[in-house]
């Protein structure tokens, strides 16, 4: 806790202290100069500030300061008569000083005063606002969040200009000192939810926060939940829609995703494009995604269960066709299914992790050589491969639930292979109860289906017209139990 030492009034001692705390780090720049006849030092971190802004906003005005009686007068003059930058937090200890210089601020310390002045002149290299890679959208905005929390805040503010939008910055991570921004609409957010989230964030004592996964467990229940009760988005427009519905968003510096609380299952099936097309088409697409989810999870398991235990479900033509296809396969149908699914997961994981230039080669090898060869050699039957591909494609239609779909698909496949439809049904009951037990801060994950809220079905089972929506006045608080 050494860093909480107050700023030392003697300049040389103060500079020595800064060097000592930073371990003489090469990127901590200390420039001594005279301002108003008083000896000062400008402390900043290399690569974190804009040299151009520094020259214009700091050095130019500093050299023009008339002679002052003492450091207090000097700081008062700077505060009153110059406008170095709009962001000027007070600094009284070394901990704050280091946090600020490491965030792109320039800090001036002067001889004879135990405080410092900080100026926000950030100018570090950042990725520009680009199209989100994971959440596709046709008709909506093509802007996605970046790694800089302040840029992300501005992306939200540009869309919601209301003063009711509140953005609270806090710092978390004992080593990383990561800026975390809590966003909410103060006229919409349930006060208890806000209080509970702030309490949960207070419990974070991590050394660093490097992704959304670091803080999500603090916002979710401790017992095992298969599905996430907090959401993430990389789209500012989607986030704004959620904020207006009374949700709370958490932005983390260095992460191009925002965490939203509470999250409902139905949100995984909604996209912003649903509101850009006619309601009938939006309803069609939404139901297609529900079907895709069911297909992705259950189709391989049901196929195996039918083939192995319930062939009476098939008509004779289909039964003969499947029997013919499986007749020459050297492996059992369960082994075949597991082989295909595991192959797909390996190829998918390899596709995500490998360097981009080799991606094309992997696609050719996996898609053409392995896929084609497996069928031609008779290792995998064509109907089974078709079923597996359908299931995999179904999962891709609901990318938000992909981790859950992947694991559930395997578990249902095994239960179907061992106990047929009975096994699938029994396991489905356990999963259903797990989903229904999922909730965050009293917001059930399965709302508005169970607990049933008629009004909520207007944007889950159906998608009512936008003019009707404007009178709806919906906030997520309606689902609180």
């Amino acid at each position, binding site marked *: 806790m050494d860093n909480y030492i107050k700023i030392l009034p003697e300049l040389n001692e103060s500079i020595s202290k800064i060097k000592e705390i930073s371990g003489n780090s090469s990127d901590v720049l200390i420039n001594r100069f005279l301002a108003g006849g008083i000896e000062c030092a400008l402390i900043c971190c290399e690569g974190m500030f804009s040299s151009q802004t520094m020259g214009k906003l700091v050095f130019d005005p500093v050299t023009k300061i008339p002679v002052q009686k003492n450091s207090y007068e000097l700081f008062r003059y700077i505060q009153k008569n110059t406008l170095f930058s709009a962001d000027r937090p007070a600094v009284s200890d070394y901990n704050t000083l280091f946090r600020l210089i490491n965030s792109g601020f320039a800090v001036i310390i002067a001889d004879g005063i135990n405080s410092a002045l900080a100026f926000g002149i950030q100018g570090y290299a950042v990725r520009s606002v680009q199209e989100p890679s994971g959440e596709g959208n046709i008709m909506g905005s093509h802007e996605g969040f970046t790694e800089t929390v302040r840029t992300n805040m501005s992306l939200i503010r540009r869309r919601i200009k209301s003063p009711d939008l509140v953005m609270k910055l806090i710092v978390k991570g004992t080593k990383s000192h990561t800026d975390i921004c809590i966003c909410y609409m103060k006229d919409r957010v349930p006060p208890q939810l806000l209080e509970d989230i702030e309490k949960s964030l207070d419990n974070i004592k991590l050394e660093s926060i490097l992704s959304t996964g670091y803080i999500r467990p603090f916002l979710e229940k401790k017992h095992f939940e298969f599905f996430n009760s907090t959401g993430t988005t990389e789209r500012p427009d989607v986030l704004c829609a959620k904020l207006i519905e009374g949700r709370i968003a958490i932005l983390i510096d260095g992460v191009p995703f925002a965490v939203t609380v509470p999250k409902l299952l139905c949100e995984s099936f909604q996209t912003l494009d649903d509101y850009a097309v006619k309601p009938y088409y939006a309803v069609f697409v939404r139901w297609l995604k529900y079907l895709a989810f069911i297909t992705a999870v259950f189709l391989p398991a049901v196929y195996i269960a039918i083939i192995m235990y*319930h062939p009476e479900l098939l008509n004779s033509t289909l039964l003969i066709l499947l029997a013919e296809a499986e007749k020459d396969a050297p492996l059992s149908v369960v082994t075949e299914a597991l082989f295909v699914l595991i192959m797909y997961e390996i190829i998918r994981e390899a596709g995500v992790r490998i360097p981009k230039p080799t991606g094309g080669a992997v696609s050719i090898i996996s898609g053409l050589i392995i896929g084609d060869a497996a069928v031609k050699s008779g290792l995998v039957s064509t109907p089974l491969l078709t079923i597996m591909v359908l299931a995999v494609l179904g999962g891709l239609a609901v990318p938000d639930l992909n981790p859950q779909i992947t694991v559930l698909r395997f578990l249902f496949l095994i239960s179907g292979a061992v106990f047929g439809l*009975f*096994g699938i049904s029994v396991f489905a009951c*356990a999963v259903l109860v797990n989903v*229904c037990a999922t909730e965050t801060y009293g917001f059930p994950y399965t709302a508005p289906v169970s*607990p049933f809220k008629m009004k909520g079905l207007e944007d889950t089972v159906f998608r009512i017209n936008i003019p009707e929506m404007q009178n709806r006045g919906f906030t997520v608080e309606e689902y609180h139990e």
Partner: protein
Amino acid sequence: MNKISKEQFTAVLLISDIFAMLCIKGSISAFTSVGFITGIIFSFALLIPFIRYCQKGGTFGKCGKFTAFLYLCYIIFSGSNIFSMIWNTSEVIYIPYENNGLYGKILISAVIAVSCIYISSCGIKALARSAVIAMSFGTLCIIIVTVSALMKSEWNNFALAENSGNLYADFIKGCAWSCNIGVLMVFSESLQDDITDSLFFYFTFKVLLFTVILLVTVLVSGGIMKVTDFPVVTSAQISQPFSVQRIDSLFLIVFSVFAVFSVAVQTSSAINILKEIFPNFVKFRNSAVLAVMILTALVPFDDTFRFSANVIFMFTAPVVYFLKNKNPLTVRG
């Protein structure tokens, strides 16, 4: 707050009731219907003091250890009846390994028990929420079966449906399905809505669904009732809506889902009572309840005995509750 709505309360209770109905063994006759109606009237009458007690702010929880133990026995016995029904009915519904005798029975029970251990550990709220979804799914399936059954029904089957010859057995069977008072009283503790409203809602839905199922069963299988072991299952099999695809599998799914939820409802109720009697018994509570249920189900009681015992429990439990709580209309601290 572990509170449930009247819809959730209804779904939780109806799931066990309908499952029992799906597993009815032997014929369904006019005497069965009389038994059913009598059971409902009597159970409702017996519940009146409890309803008034609840309206004055009382709950089931503080009923004393003896009464709690009686209810625990009642619920465990009901649970064992469900396991027994699962084993019996699985003879006509294809469940893998069911044909392997005792090993098959134990395996099926173990699968259901493992699932129920997890479900009951998630709490009443999760169970109630999921019961609504399961019940909605079940109702949808029943509607599909009903529509297809009505197309294949023959009205003269009404006249052909005869009593089994054992009027007592028919009457007691109807009575036994009419109400599971034990579970009802335990779950009423978690109700957030008015108990009278909730019970009215539950009994209305129950009568409606039972009437539909009984009507369809008699219309479809009335003529072959005497040679049918499981009339509801048979009527579902006969009335398949598709020419080739079999409705048995749809029925198997409904059967399995309702079986799991029925056992889970009994387990959760038993656990709630067990908490009152032995508050320090926490570890393996769920497993112990399920093990006792399965072991009781293995005792070879005949169906008439099971139904009679169930009816005796059903009628005596509220009376004992009333007598032990000398003045249940005055709320105890």
